[in-house]
């Protein structure tokens, strides 16, 4: 119990720190709102062109985009703790190693708290406004309680998978020492593969099937598709199961990589 408390206080510390940036959050809300609106307008234009080629219903697409903007910070691959990269590069990470905490768990909770503190400030205004827009652009409530109940844990799982993926990037920085390149590649790939550019159902079928099995889909795609009713019944449960599978796999991978990295860590200078 004592052990868990430690990490909870890490979480609380970072969380309250994140809550300080309220002006930034207000600006972020406006940005994300405009971003979402433009996306939806573009999808409407495609819908007008050929409604029969649309792989989701238009309502589901609109819901998908609003939720994506509202919960962006939970899934966004670019939310990283820059202090950690700096610590690894400069060697001050050695102080962290002296502390009686598991580095993996600490970094994991830090990333998670960063995500949640941003979302808490940003999601409510976006959701609220989106709920009262004119028809066709409005965020609608989920079709049944069932998919909503599955959506909530799925959302949290998405955040966990995102955090576990990032700790792997942190750990890999021990080997490369220059984070920019690796981080940018991971960001670009996961942004695309988790359906930020266009939702996964809009991919060609064969590619979509591969992407759905990848961990990236478990981050930003599955929860949104469950909410919007695009994934329902058996498919929803399969996707949900995949999320759990990837969380376990990525955590194991990350811990293994971290252990290898720390075994070889050489501190440059004093």
């Amino acid at each position: 119990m004592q052990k868990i408390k430690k990490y909870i206080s890490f979480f609380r510390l970072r969380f309250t720190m994140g809550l300080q940036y309220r002006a930034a959050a207000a600006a972020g809300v406006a940005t994300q709102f405009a971003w979402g609106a433009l996306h939806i307008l573009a999808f409407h234009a495609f819908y007008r062109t050929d409604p029969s080629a649309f792989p989701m219903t238009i309502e589901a697409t609109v819901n998908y985009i609003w939720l994506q903007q509202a919960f962006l910070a939970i899934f966004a691959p670019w939310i990283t703790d820059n202090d950690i990269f700096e610590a690894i590069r400069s060697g001050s990470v050695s102080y962290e190693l002296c502390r009686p905490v598991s580095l993996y768990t600490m970094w994991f909770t830090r990333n998670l708290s960063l995500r949640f503190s941003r979302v808490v400030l940003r999601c409510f205004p976006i959701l609220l406004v989106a709920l009262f827009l004119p028809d066709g652009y409005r965020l609608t409530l989920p079709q049944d309680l069932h998919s909503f109940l599955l959506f909530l844990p799925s959302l949290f799982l998405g955040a966990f998978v995102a955090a576990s993926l990032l700790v792997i990037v942190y750990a890999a920085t021990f080997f490369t020492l220059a984070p920019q390149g690796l981080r940018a590649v991971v960001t670009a790939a996961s942004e695309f593969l988790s359906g930020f550019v266009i939702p996964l159902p809009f991919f060609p079928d064969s590619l979509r099937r591969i992407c759905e099995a990848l961990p990236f889909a478990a981050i930003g795609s599955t929860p949104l598709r469950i909410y919007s009713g695009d994934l329902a019944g058996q498919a929803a449960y399969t996707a949900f199961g995949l999320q759990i599978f990837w969380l376990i796999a990525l955590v194991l991978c990350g811990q293994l990589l971290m252990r290898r990295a720390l075994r070889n860590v050489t501190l440059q200078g004093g």
Partner: protein
Amino acid sequence: MKLYFKYFSIHLKSVMQYKVSFLLTVFSQLMLTVTSFLGIHFMFARFHTVEGFTYNEVLFCCGVVLLSFCLAECIARGFDTFASMIGNGEFDRILVRPRNEILQVLGTRIEFTRVGRMLMGIVMFVYAANRGGIPWDVPRVITLLFMILGGTTIFCGLFLLYAGFCFFTLEGLEFMNIFTDGMYQHGRYPLSVYGKRVLQFCTYIIPFSLVQYYPLMYVLGKGGGTYCIFLPLLAMLFLIPCWIFWRVGVRKYTSTGS
């Protein structure tokens, strides 16, 4: 101007010290662009046209916007980190030097890594220009050059505006991203796709459609008279209010003291 080239060569030399890191960043920049291209590709594999624009035409539009955005980013990236320059007092040092401030801020950072994106922009653009069935003639080529020139100017103006806001807020405003990154991300599609109101906003408030939509219509031969050739030049006037805003900011500037 000579000073700018001096800055240019210093940055080029410093980048070349870390070749691997540079190449990786160029590669990742390229990937970011490839993913946004794939987004368009997949959409058109499914729908074929949108609002009367074909795949090639959208690709052409996307290439032009991408190219002008990258050029602007190469030149004016210094403004992007301007908030931290005010924060740490670096700007005070610039003010005491007997040279133009804008030139010095520009000189703090020149992004060569954008070469990756630019390459992609050129590829897309050439591909679409060849296959799009555009009857190339002298006025169209001139229009195209004007579009890129005008686009670069508008993006530079937006970066300048962004930096100007920093004088009043002391921090970067994420809100401005809608106009810089947003214009580039959403400018991939001709603006009429977003409906009339967005088009109006981008004509009268920020003259983005003057370099994108209207001249595009002319080049593609979809209506739009000969006057469209010169619209991008008109749009370049946008730089003037941005510059005035910046001047007001400089005049109002009080150091943060650190």
